């Protein structure tokens, strides 16, 4: 318990304010990876409850969301999360910004469901026994009581992704980032999980190619070659994006190297 309060004190020290409604501000943020520009001079503030990210492969969506939890730091410009520049508060961000990766097999760290969920709680300073009990109660609250003892490797794809989402939610972040979370799921499972996500109290930033799901979001950012091509409500951005895809498929000739 003492350790847990110390963690909280550290969050206050770095001046991060998790109740600020504008949770992320990018000011001229650029990112280079191995000398290649990946994000170029992006300036946006994020405060809407559900924000969707669209764009072609390689347009920088994954890199963009990684700036939001300091998995990547901007090469130039500033990224402020809850008011603090990311290098300063990087160590405390996992508590406030949860991240769900595309492939559950790359995210789950522990052999069984219960351990995977309990891990987040021990990270926050709970002892093993109470973490385990809380993890069980949490799983039961989310209709997963039957999965508690299961090895992750025996779960279905949908169950794996749900557990990965719950493993992040159990740490009670204010913001939840999802990077193409439904790519390996069938339509029904994807629909069920996106309903679950829609009902969460967290602010959501989701990368997705599923324009139907994104239609219900509050704001869409369209990234193209590392820049924001369009930013607005889904009613404006999604039709423009879809039309652009159609236009390019119809008019641009392509080679293997342009895919």
């Amino acid at each position, binding site marked *: 318990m003492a350790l847990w309060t110390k963690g909280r004190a550290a969050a206050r020290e770095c001046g991060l304010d998790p109740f600020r409604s504008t949770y992320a501000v990018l000011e001229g943020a650029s990112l280079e990876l191995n000398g290649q520009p990946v994000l170029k001079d992006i300036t946006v503030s994020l405060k809407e409850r559900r924000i969707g990210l669209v764009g072609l492969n390689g347009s920088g969506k994954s890199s963009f969301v990684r700036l939001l939890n300091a998995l990547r730091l901007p090469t130039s410009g500033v990224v402020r999360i809850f008011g603090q520049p990311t290098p300063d508060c990087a160590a405390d961000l*996992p508590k406030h910004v949860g991240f769900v990766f595309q492939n559950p*097999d790359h995210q789950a760290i522990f*052999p069984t469901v219960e351990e995977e969920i309990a891990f987040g709680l021990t*990270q*926050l300073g709970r002892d093993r026994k109470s973490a385990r009990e809380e993890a069980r109660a949490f799983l039961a609250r989310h209709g997963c009581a039957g999965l508690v003892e299961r090895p992750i490797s025996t779960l279905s794809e949908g169950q794996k992704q749900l557990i990965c989402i719950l493993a992040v939610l159990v740490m009670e972040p204010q913001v939840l980032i999802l990077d193409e979370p439904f790519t390996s799921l069938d339509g029904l499972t994807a629909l069920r999980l996106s309903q679950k996500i829609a009902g969460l109290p967290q602010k959501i930033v989701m990368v997705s190619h599923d324009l139907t799901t994104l239609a219900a979001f509050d704001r869409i950012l369209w990234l193209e070659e590392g820049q924001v091509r369009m930013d607005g409500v889904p009613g404006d951005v999604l039709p423009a994006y879809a039309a652009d895809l159609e236009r390019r498929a119809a008019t641009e000739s392509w080679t293997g190297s342009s895919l």
Partner: protein
Amino acid sequence: MIATYIPGASWLHRCPAGLKLIALLVVSIVVFPLTNLWMLTIGLIGVAACYAPFGRDAFVQFKRLKPIALMLAFLFGFHIYLGTWTEGLAVLIRIVTLVLMANLVSLTTRLDDMIAAVEPLFRPLKLFGVPPQRPALAIALVLRFVPVLMSIHEGLAESYQARSGRRRSWRLIAPLALQALAISDHVAESLAARGGSSGLADTRMRR
């Protein structure tokens, strides 16, 4: 060969992990110098009897001896050849007893209890600045990713077979290693996203 935990409520499940590990150690030490076939047999029956709570599944567990059956047969054959079949039988019973007992411990002990039981052994690592929970995390990661790597290997083998007509090849070792490295990058990222290997509570050990 070694089974993973099967949830249950038998007396063996309730028995503390440390005690089971010590019992395993003690039995190993006692059984090795023992040559009396009768006593060895009684020991084996004793261990086999501990499988009773698993009922029918116990026989499934006994099948886990299959991978070492060949080695046992070879050992026994060798002893017969040397004309020391009683010694061969003793070796056979000893190994089977210990494998069954080790299997029983892992069947009835949750991984994190097992790790907690061995964690004190890692405490001296603190002297070198390594948090004692690191080795525990490493063990968990190995157990988590063995099935993942097996299924990746399965996928590579299928893809190889689909285009070569042959099953299994040493050529798959390189792509498997590359995929393992790629996964380790992803998992490192996932661990960092949830606060890293030393947790979020203790600010001193970070970074």
